[in-house]
């Protein structure tokens, strides 16, 4: 078995932290679920889980490529690479989504949760069409989404980095990539589903009152679950070193 030493504890903690980052990310991404796809709610018209995971995984691709081809890459750089990939993915998605809301459905963007956009100061309530919860992606949602994607991608990059360092000495390079990648994906999915249950499928972003209401308990849940995952990850490494 594995002896308790500071490096391992740090690793467990870092995996716990990265899971929490992914969980936090979900809260920032403005997702309106099925109503948003009908332009009946503010945000992106899809599910929380998939959008968070989708952007996080693009981040994982960029982070893993960075890790593989830059031997000097340290934790911040790999995390930043992940964050960049995720941000680009989510920003392109939201931008193209805005095109559809603007010129395909022809509705002005408006948030139902705040009276004025905290960034641009535009009135929101006048622009909400009848019988809906707002529509489109106003600037505050866009910025919040980008921040969320950055957190998610950074979390994915961090966990991948930690796992690679754990498994690299024990397995061949190909296997280490695969094992670390699959494990990252598992942790990512667990941590993007948990907050989705917390927010009940829809959230507008950081300005949504729901954000303050649920973020605390989701983060606590995610942190504990991710710590457990981290513990298992470290123990797996112990199991490999026969």
């Amino acid at each position: 078995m594995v002896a308790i030493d500071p490096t391992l504890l740090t690793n467990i903690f870092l995996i716990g932290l990265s899971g929490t980052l992914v969980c936090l990310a979900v809260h920032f991404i403005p997702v309106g679920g099925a109503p948003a796809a009908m332009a009946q709610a503010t945000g992106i018209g899809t599910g929380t889980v998939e959008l968070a995971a989708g952007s996080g995984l693009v981040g994982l691709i960029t982070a893993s490529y960075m890790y593989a081809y830059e031997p000097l890459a340290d934790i911040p750089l790999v995390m930043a690479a992940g964050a960049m990939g995720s941000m680009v993915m989510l920003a392109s998605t939201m931008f193209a989504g805005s095109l559809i809301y603007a010129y395909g459905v022809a509705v002005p963007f408006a948030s139902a949760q705040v009276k004025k956009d905290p960034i641009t100061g535009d009135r929101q309530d006048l622009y909400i069409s009848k019988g809906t919860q707002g529509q489109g992606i106003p600037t505050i949602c866009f910025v919040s989404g980008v921040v969320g994607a950055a957190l998610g991608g950074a979390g994915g990059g961090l966990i991948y980095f930690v796992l690679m360092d754990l498994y690299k000495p024990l397995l061949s390079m190909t296997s280490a990539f695969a094992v670390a990648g699959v494990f990252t994906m598992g942790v990512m999915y667990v941590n993007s589903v948990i907050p989705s249950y917390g927010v009940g499928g829809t959230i507008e972003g950081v300005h949504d009152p729901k954000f303050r209401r649920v973020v605390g308990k989701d983060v606590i849940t995610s942190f504990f679950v991710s710590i457990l995952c981290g513990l298992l990850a470290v123990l797996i490494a112990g199991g490999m070193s026969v």
Partner: protein
Amino acid sequence: MVLDLTMSMAVLALLGALATIAGCLEDLESDVGSQSNPNSQVQLAPQMGFLHRIFNKAISGEPISNGMSAVIGGTVTTVLLSQKFYPLTAIVIGAFIGAIILGIFATTSYAGRVASQTRFKQPLYMDIMRYTTPTIIGHNFIMNFCLVAIAYIQFEVLGYPFTIPFLALIWGISVGAIGSSVGDVHYGGEREFQNREFGCGLNTALSGRIVRKAESGLRNSIDNVWFCAKFGGPATGIALGLTVFFSSWPTTLFGYTWTAIGIGVLIVAVLTIMNRLIELNVRHAYGPYKEEKNEKEAKA
């Protein structure tokens, strides 16, 4: 870096082009079957008394179903490549098997969902099943082909650490996430409620009251693709193309440095500003729903 700069840029451009096609076709495929979020309206319609002749492809959210067909395509391709198949053949066969399996899942979800709506008297139309499923398979095949090709290029040419099925799965999930965020809005927000005034916003009370008549005869899912191919599909394609292109472009040009990260952030900032410009444009063009702001949503 494995290739020189010119070659990397060429490969990157190819990836972007493939991604654009994949994104476009993914969205159209989901519109053929009425998948993902707009599906809730198709599902709800019989309950509101609106029986219809639209396919109900509730496989799951798009990221999951597209991830599935792409990962199957990637796996089969890997198997064939290990048998020394020519790569293009391997990718085509792999993509085809992935698409066929998606088609099988599509038939079960249409039949299953309709059979679970017995009390609303929604009939199961076998002709819809018979000619919509091949359309779904066809669209999905092209998407699979592009995604597995991207995965193949990234793995074999660019030397990404992940294997072909892994990359195909990630791109499948991403294309699904993008397709359901972008293109589906065009289908769900506009096409399903085309009989309402353009730009009136969709009152929640309208849920389930979808359009069931086409330009000629009764509307079916193929009519929906025809409409969405004009805007929703291409916009989705642009989104995935931008994602694939811009997520690698900075590192291709500037190497694996903080400069590249900075360029990436700059791209995101530009996209944010463009979004703001669109927001201003539409607010100016359409104006507020002023006269409606004090009313309740009472109308049923």
